[in-house]
């Protein structure tokens, strides 16, 4: 009884998502008659940006994941006083608005950043430029290394303590232990982590926009935006968008074939301590890696805070355009998060009721629809919608609705990922009880689900909220003087080189995202403890 009644809303939402995506893709097809990937490939410029998208994503992945392995390994066996704080910081680079991160990096590594200033004191010039490939790689490593390290650390923690005890008893060396015990465990997780990081870098938009510095370092994602907004070449925009779908789709299928994802849990604090044969060399080795990652993550974040407290502070926070942008950001984030949570929850109700009766195949497909955005990047959807609505209405008048919808869609995979496992477990535990008590609908949700999985629900909401608040890819196309969110405002300030004002906005966006994210986590974990 209970199973049937829950499938319909989820199916309707799934249908709605399909319709939404199909509408925007067909608008793209309509604008690019005779889509021919071969022709696209023959054009030297398109070939270059395609190659560059792959090249920078490949290098970013190698660097981020490659460096994350020794970092995760070092963190797995060391305990120091700020470790849990560091791990929390790691969690935040995923939700840190890209532009804020880029701003922090610029003030450390930029042409007039801290390093350049230090060098200037000894009459040296900065030996590299942050614009172009260097900067893109640096930013991608900054964002993805901590994320990858956290995932790998999690899988290292899944090694049974007996294995650690055994290797300790046998007295095997560090290298052999890594090779025999830890590596096999990491290797299982690696394709998934690499795939994820690769996709994130491949579709990277804000980073490349802020640090690209010309046609030489342009990704397909950015070229779509440029074709429409710079060249007013709608056909090229549509063509590139379809090209992006094709490439991302093939990548996603490829990645799925090779990897088995491990759910990302939110536990960072407690893990068991295990014995191993420590020595001086191992200590130095580990501290080297831990200091490396500290040096990568801390200075840019610190600079965001230091730079933000400047003389322009008062004038920025008293300007109406700032409050306007803040208000828009909140509106977008709150609606997008609610819609994503709502949609994700109902789709999972459907998929889990199928799972409970053993139709995993259908459930997988349904959950795949919810993660459709990973294959069709946000900018592609926005482009399609833009073209679709352009002839019907004043697109810029509807901008906020579109931005919310696209952001909700972009947050949906995170909601699904966070809630799928807990919701299934609740159902397995309580379904029969609920059926026998005649509990269903809202009372079941309130009495059972909410109490049991409050924490993941709040986590999913806060992650959606913060991601939508920091997103630039949907607003970039639709934003205007009338509709500005904080990230767009920050981009405009960076664009007109008002660095001091940009620093203040960065600080605000930083405090808001990280603050909201950690506050919500804190509250929900406290409640759980009671």
């Amino acid at each position, binding site marked *: 009884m209970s199973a049937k009644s829950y499938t319909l809303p989820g199916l309707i939402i799934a249908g709605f998502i399909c319709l939404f995506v199909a509408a925007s893709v067909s608008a793209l097809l309509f604008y690019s008659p005779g889509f021919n990937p071969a022709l696209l490939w023959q054009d030297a410029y398109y070939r270059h940006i395609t190659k560059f998208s792959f090249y920078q994503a490949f290098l970013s992945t190698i660097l981020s994941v490659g460096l994350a392995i020794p970092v995760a390994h070092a963190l797995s066996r060391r305990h120091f006083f700020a470790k849990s704080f560091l791990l929390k910081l790691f969690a935040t680079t995923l939700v840190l608005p890209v532009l804020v991160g880029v701003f922090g990096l610029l003030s450390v590594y930029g042409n*007039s950043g801290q390093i350049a200033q230090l060098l200037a004191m000894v009459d040296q010039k900065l030996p590299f430029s942050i614009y172009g490939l260097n900067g893109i790689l640096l930013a991608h490593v900054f964002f993805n290394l901590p994320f990858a390290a956290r995932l790998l650390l999690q899988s290292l923690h899944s090694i049974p303590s007996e294995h650690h005890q055994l290797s300790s008893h046998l007295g095997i060396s560090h290298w052999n232990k890594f090779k025999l015990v830890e590596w096999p465990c990491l290797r299982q997780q690696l394709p998934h982590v690499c795939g994820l990081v690769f996709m994130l870098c491949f579709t990277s938009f804000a980073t490349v926009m802020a640090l690209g510095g*010309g046609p030489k370092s342009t990704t397909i994602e950015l070229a779509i935006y440029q074709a429409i907004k710079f060249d007013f070449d709608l056909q090229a925009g549509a063509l590139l968008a379809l090209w992006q779908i094709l490439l991302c789709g093939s990548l996603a299928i490829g990645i799925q074939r090779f990897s088995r994802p491990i759910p990302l849990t939110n536990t960072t604090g407690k893990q068991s301590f295990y014995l191993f044969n420590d020595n001086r060399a191992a200590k130095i080795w580990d501290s080297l890696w831990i200091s490396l990652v500290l040096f990568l993550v801390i200075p840019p974040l610190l600079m965001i805070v230091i730079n933000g407290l400047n003389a322009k502070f008062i004038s920025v926070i008293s300007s109406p355009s700032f409050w306007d942008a803040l208000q828009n950001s909140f509106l977008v984030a709150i*609606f997008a998060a609610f819609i994503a949570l709502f949609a994700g929850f109902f789709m999972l109700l459907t998929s889990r009721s199928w799972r409970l009766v053993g139709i995993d195949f259908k459930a997988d497909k349904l959950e795949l629809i919810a993660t459709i955005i990973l294959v069709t990047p946000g900018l592609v959807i926005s482009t399609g919608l833009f073209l679709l609505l352009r002839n019907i209405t004043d697109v810029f*008048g*509807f901008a906020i609705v579109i931005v919310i919808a696209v952001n909700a869609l972009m947050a949906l995979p995170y909601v699904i990922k966070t809630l799928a496992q807990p919701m299934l477990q609740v159902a397995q535990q309580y379904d029969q009880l609920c059926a026998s008590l005649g509990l269903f609908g809202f009372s079941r949700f309130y009495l059972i689900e909410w109490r049991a999985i409050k924490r993941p629900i709040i986590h999913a909401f806060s992650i959606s909220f913060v991601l939508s608040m920091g997103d630039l890819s949907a607003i970039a196309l639709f934003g205007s003087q009338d509709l500005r969110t904080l990230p767009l405002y920050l981009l405009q300030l960076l664009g007109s080189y008002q660095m001091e004002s940009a620093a203040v906005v960065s600080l605000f966006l930083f405090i808001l995202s990280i603050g909201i994210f950690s506050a919500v986590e804190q509250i929900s974990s406290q409640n759980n403890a009671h």
Partner: protein
Amino acid sequence: MKKIIPLMAFSVIISMPVLADKLVVYTYDSFASDWGPGPKIKQAFEKNCACSLEFVALDDGVSILNRLRLEGKNTKADILLGLDNNLMTEAKKTGLLAKHKVDTSNVILANGWSDNTFVPFDYGYFSFVYNKETLLNPPASLKELIEQRQDINVIYQDPRTSTPGLGLMLWIKWVYGDQADDAWKKLAKKTVTVTKGWSEAYSMFLKGEADMVLSYSTSPAYHIIAEGKNQYAAANFSEGHYTQVEVAAKVKSSKNEKLADKFMAFIVSDEFQSLMPTGNWMYPVTDVALPEGFKNLTIPSTSFSFSADKVDNNRKVWIREWQSSLIY
């Protein structure tokens, strides 16, 4: 889903035109900003029109045109101010612009003015600006800068979004012809970054991020008059300099036709024109008195520009040439 309905209604309401007389002018940010001529022009125009004038500031000249094309007939703009001679044909082709009724007989440009869609509001010559204190021997020609000087780095603007960027593209095309792609490749080696608009490039230059920046031969006047600084100068190139005439036009879908006409006529008035030299740091298009600082500026020995038709026919191909030269 219920929550989205009031929001949709809300967004429809805020997108409705305001009924009071308001003239919306799309322009570029350095024109509209506090340090540009915008505020004074707003004040002067509002004084005798019983209306309000609103500037919508976009990145740069070409983005004004792109914005109009994106919005099509639903645009909120009544006036576009900040396109230039190179974009006139292309802008006319959109079919979104109306003819003006302004008498342009007092325009003092070299060949007068006869266009019936656009009204010129200022003009100038593209130039590379440098700091005399840090760059002691500036290049004497475009060819010297591009081919010989390895010690100089530059910042310029994207020709897809900015009128100076487009100007440099045409300048290089004029000087190099078929060898333009080669010239771009050489220039790429000394390019710090390509910016979206003029403001960004110029402020990066002032912060010391590059030796030279693409700007105008009149830019040093700003430093002389507004800041009392004499160290900035525009390099004089022996090949000659590309001329830019900045223009304004009325949008066909404007709901305030009368007000728009009034503004178009205001552009060639002495009041507007005398704000150009020290507001927009360009030459006025009518015979108004130039301030003192302008008299010390270098004036290019030769100046030239392609016809608007020629630019329109080739812009896409030439931009692609620029893009393709930069990727190797």
